[in-house]
């Protein structure tokens, strides 16, 4: 697939906004519809757009597969650690022990924001991992 110049420049310009939208969905997960999963998938589509426009080798050296898979495992261990954190304070597993903050603003839902962040990192790294595996197996793009 010859990467035409239009797609490349467009992708280059659009990329930061897609990332921004992904982070918006993640951090407003508890305020508006959205959350960790949707934010992660949007960030993954940004990386996939990069692959479509610039080809696998370009994105490979920016988002190395090894780093992504390590990030994924760290994200899940962080999720479990957040749960275990509750146990250190004497609450049951996965208890929302952080202060609940003021209703309506971002820092308002205690443990849910870090959980959302961890999930979106995991989903973004996971979806790109699957995309890399499928692309590399076919080896076309």
């Amino acid at each position, binding site marked *: 697939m010859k990467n035409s110049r239009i797609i490349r420049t467009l992708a280059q310009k659009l990329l930061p906004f897609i990332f921004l939208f992904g982070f918006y969905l993640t951090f407003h997960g508890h305020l508006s519809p959205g959350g960790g999963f949707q934010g992660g998938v949007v960030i993954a589509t940004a990386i996939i757009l990069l692959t479509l426009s610039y080809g696998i080798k370009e994105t490979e050296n920016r988002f190395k597969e090894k780093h992504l898979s390590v990030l994924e495992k760290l994200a899940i261990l962080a999720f479990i650690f957040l749960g275990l954190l*509750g*146990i250190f304070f004497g609450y*049951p*597993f996965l208890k929302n022990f952080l202060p609940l903050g003021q209703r309506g603003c971002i820092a308002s839902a205690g443990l849910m924001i870090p959980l959302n962040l961890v999930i979106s990192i995991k989903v973004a790294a996971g979806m790109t991992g699957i995309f890399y595996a499928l692309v590399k197996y076919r080896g076309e793009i």
Partner: protein
Amino acid sequence: MLNHLPILIIIFPLSIAFIILLFKKYIIALSTFSILFSLASLLKFAPSVYKGQIISYHLGGWPAPLGISLLIDSLSFFFALTVLLIGMMVIIYSIPDKKYNHNYYFLLLILLSSMVGTIFTADIFNMYILYDLVAIATYLLIAYYQHGVALKASFNYLLMSAVGLSLFLLGVGSLYAMSGTLHIASISEQLPEIFAHNPQIIIMSLVLVITSMGIKMAMVPLHGWLPDAHSLAPSPVSAILSGVVVKVGLYCLIRLIFGLFSTEKILVNIASHYILMVFGAITLLFGAMMALTQTDLKRMLAYSTINQIGLILIGLGFNIYSGFEGALFHVLNHALLKSALFFCAGIIIIKTGSKKIKELAGFGKKNPVVAFCFVILSLGIIGIPPMNGFVSKFLICLAAIEAGYSILALVIIFASLITAAYYFRVIQIFYSEPIQPNSNLPNIDVAENSLFWDKYFRLWPIYILTGFSLMLGILPSLGLSLIRPAVKILLLNIIK
């Protein structure tokens, strides 16, 4: 820290599995340590569970009907103990094989921790999600060797069990539609008045649960995936598949039928027990018949699993004390015997280089110890007196006569004769002279040189499991004392 043990039993092997993937070092040490930790913390509950206490752990600090809660009573304690015991044996068995790298141990640890999670949860949607994790781990373990045949078997199993799990989700949805909660205890409280208002939705969700768990347990019309999946997987994987993964489906069925559907609504009770008995009998006979015609050793063992699952279903279907006791005792016996048999099959296939029963001639002479263990274990499966298989089969036949279905007792004895037929056929070939030096077929499992300390790590699980089965056979009161509190849980709802 002590009162957080129920969740740590599940979470600790899960996190060790991810740490193994990250660091890829000390794989075997870490995995054995995590399973031993879970086993030890599970045994810590033994005294209180034996006294009949029910330990519940509310996740996230929310009371029962709101959040998810874990429930350890004697029934889940018994099943979790079998899971972790056989899991420990499988890990020891797969140590010497270098082909099993960090991915294998990761999948095995995830499989074990999600099975224990499925057993402990008291929330039907959580049971669905954890059962899905068990299923995905089994697909990947079956397809571990990437041979074309294993991929086909894994894909076939994936399709059937994905449909089964969607049926289960429909059942969960209809139960939620009627009761508003997902907690097993609070649903079963509301069941009588729902049943009065709208009986067919309760019966349909019962049917959905039985079909979906039937697929997972390989009840006869839904068993198509089991022979391929269990025979083409690597030997330790097929050991844990046949020994334990099938039992988790059985556990979910028992937990839902006797925990949720079996309120004093007699109609729902009797209908479900007839279904269990009829399908159990068909599974028993079908499994025995098909096992006779098999030429591949592992496929024969897989069909023998279907055969024994049918026996357990019959035992459950009688709805009386000795029926449950025999069935649950047979769950333990079958787990011990069948996984040891698959361990022996693994060694046999490596040593003789072929899976076909005909080419196993003269194996008895080459290494008499494994062949001798194979003989003892098959005696156990058939149900010959000194072995534990006899005790549980005898209890189930006793229950059959007690419950008035003496025909089923004859059916069980007839099926045991067929089981004896196809096991003795294999044993007879072991000790017969090899007709022609068996050609060195390209064995699928593993090359000879990739085994180190073969003597210790491959043979010890077989000895331990055979020893356990013999011990349970000679003094069955050991096993029965473990099972009696569990049976009280089952009968609690029915007598009430």
